[in-house]
């Protein structure tokens, strides 16, 4: 789709884009179901039969439209949710299961990493597990240590999972449709702070393939690879630097597994400079992962140390002043870019 064409489309928030994708896919394919806590909301209560539509409103209207047999409120039992979704996926349905917060993988990690992720391989290719696990992630809402994690590095590490991290509404819709149509388990990570971000989003259905990065900005002076909510920050930095004549590629991999390492390598082969920006904790992060791929496969192009800009190695603190210091800032990204450029 050409950029001008995109810009003619109505502006939607990322929340709306996801909601639209879910509506359209459920309409298209009756095997698609939704399950999770409060995905409709109000079960067993005396009020509205759709009290929430997801606590972040992403599944709003689906319960009313498709009924409670396809939009299933569950007890607070995440292992039972993911297990049921995975087992249903093995036997003919295409469930989209919601983890209200991705932090809750702690109570259902086995069903994700040992079960759903491994079936296809472990059963010699016979199993299909078309499940999408949606979860909200990230810091910035003063939600405290147990509701603010990213965890995509943990999920990316696991063979058999695909991991999606949209950075904008347009991508979110296309990636969600791809996720639902994918025959492998997909973890779809939605950053809380992105739900209200907007851009033009076509009304029609479209897919965005996994493993194809987007170049949010182009430039040959440095390569910034950023994930999810870090992408808008990287863009802001690139735009600022562009005014000074420093031009950066800003690469948004969109999916961390599979990862479009080719695009990253090609960019670094030109720029010779790499800055990896990841909101996750630093150890074994995606920042480290991308750095390692480049240090192995584009080493001879590198003209400066790779810079990783990440959260510190701490849980997410509650106090706003601390949480703000926790999240990688535009200033930190800018400084990292300038350092790779030898202080320019």
């Amino acid at each position, binding site marked *: 789709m050409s950029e001008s064409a995109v810009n003619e489309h109505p502006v939607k928030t990322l929340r709306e884009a996801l909601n639209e994708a879910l509506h359209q896919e459920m309409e298209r394919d009756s095997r698609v179901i939704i399950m999770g*806590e*409060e995905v409709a*909301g*109000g*079960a*067993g*209560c*005396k*009020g*509205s039969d*759709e*009290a*929430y539509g997801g*606590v972040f409103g992403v599944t709003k209207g689906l319960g009313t439209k498709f009924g409670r047999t396809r939009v299933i*409120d*569950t*007890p*607070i*039992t995440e*292992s*039972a949710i993911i297990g049921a979704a995975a087992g249903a996926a093995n036997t003919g349905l295409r469930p989209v299961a919601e983890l209200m917060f991705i*932090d*809750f993988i*702690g*109570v259902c990690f086995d069903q994700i990493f040992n079960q759903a992720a491994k079936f296809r391989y472990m059963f010699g290719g016979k199993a299909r597990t078309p499940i999408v696990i949606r979860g909200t992630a990230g810091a910035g*809402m*003063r*939600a*405290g*240590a*147990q*509701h603010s994690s990213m965890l995509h590095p943990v999920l990316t590490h696991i063979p058999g999972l695909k991991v999606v991290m949209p950075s904008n509404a347009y991508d979110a819709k296309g990636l969600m449709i791809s996720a639902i149509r994918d025959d492998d388990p997909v973890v779809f990570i939605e950053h809380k702070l992105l739900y209200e971000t907007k851009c033009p989003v076509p009304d029609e259905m479209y897919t965005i393939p996994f493993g194809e990065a987007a170049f949010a900005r182009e430039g040959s002076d440095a390569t910034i690879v950023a994930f999810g909510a870090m992408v808008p920050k990287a863009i802001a930095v690139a735009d600022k630097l562009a005014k000074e004549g420093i031009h950066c590629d800003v690469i948004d991999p969109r999916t961390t597994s599979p990862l479009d390492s080719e695009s990253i390598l090609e960019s670094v082969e030109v720029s010779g400079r790499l800055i990896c920006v990841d909101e996750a904790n*630093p*150890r074994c992060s995606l920042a480290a992962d991308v750095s390692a791929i480049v240090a192995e496969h584009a080493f001879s192009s590198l003209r400066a140390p790779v810079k990783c800009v990440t959260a*510190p*190695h*701490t*849980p997410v*603190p*509650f*106090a*706003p*002043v*601390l949480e703000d*210091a*926790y999240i990688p800032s535009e200033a930190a990204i800018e400084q990292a870019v300038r350092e790779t450029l030898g202080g320019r």
Partner: protein
Amino acid sequence: MALSSEALHKVYYTMTTIRQFEERMIKEFMAGNIPGFVHTYDGQEAVGVGICTHLTDEDIIGSTHRGHGHCIAKGCDIEAMILEIMGKQGGLCNGKGGSMHIADFDRGMLGANAIVGGGPPLCNGAALSAKTLGTKNIAVSFSGDGSSNQGTVMEALNLAGVLDLPHIFIFENNHLAEGTGDEYAVSGDIANRVASFDIPAVKVDGLDFFAVYDAMEKAVEHTRSGKGPYAIEADVIRFDGHFIGDPQAYRGEGELDDLRANKDCLKIFRKRVTSEGLMTDDELDMLDAQAGDAIEQGVQRGLAAPQPAVEELYTDVHVSY
């Protein structure tokens, strides 16, 4: 055991403190003075206070996301709580925890817990310490109706039964888990389920402080004397939203008005103690006012308090990278 007049005063003071504390937190939240997700305990005061009145500082409680009431009932300093809830320096966790992660080990408060079902397995540990070290302390975990389904809670019940741990499981059944009713989400009945683990389990009217108090007296007698775990399911209600700001679309028409009018545990307490001549309205009003003053003072200190120093970001974790 009949409560002394002094004890009764303390009970009511604690209950009204919780009520007013939560009402004030809602106000401060709405005014933008409290960040994040906050879950208030108003409506459930008779449970927290009825339970914790039986406990010492050495007894341990494990709380939930809805922890303010448990903290106050267990004796946490309300000013330090407010500082924590506001994310300020000097808060009970120095601002690093927030409402969902208040802990106060000095008061035997092992922590609120933002993971549904996170607490009961940990309380087994506190009970195991008590048993292994031969203290006569006990552990008390709080769970909700929603949380009663979580695998971790049921595993904890089984382990407490197997190891005969001095752990009293409290289930506060307010019939709601966010916007999902226990009618829908709990297959069967909580007390019955708990009993199936061979743990004595009783149901009690959680709006009646005295009923809770009496049930807990029996529970503590059982558990402190080495007879193993025990459980109480308290039938209770939630006055406000799941979190502050919740539109509560799941409520039936007039439901909230009915709760306020007919299911207010403070009113029920007042009626009982005044009608039985145990306390006067004046005494109760005075306690209301005293509690209000203390909260006012705490809030003012909280508003004035500085944020934590930014370097705090990097402390309390073994290594920084």
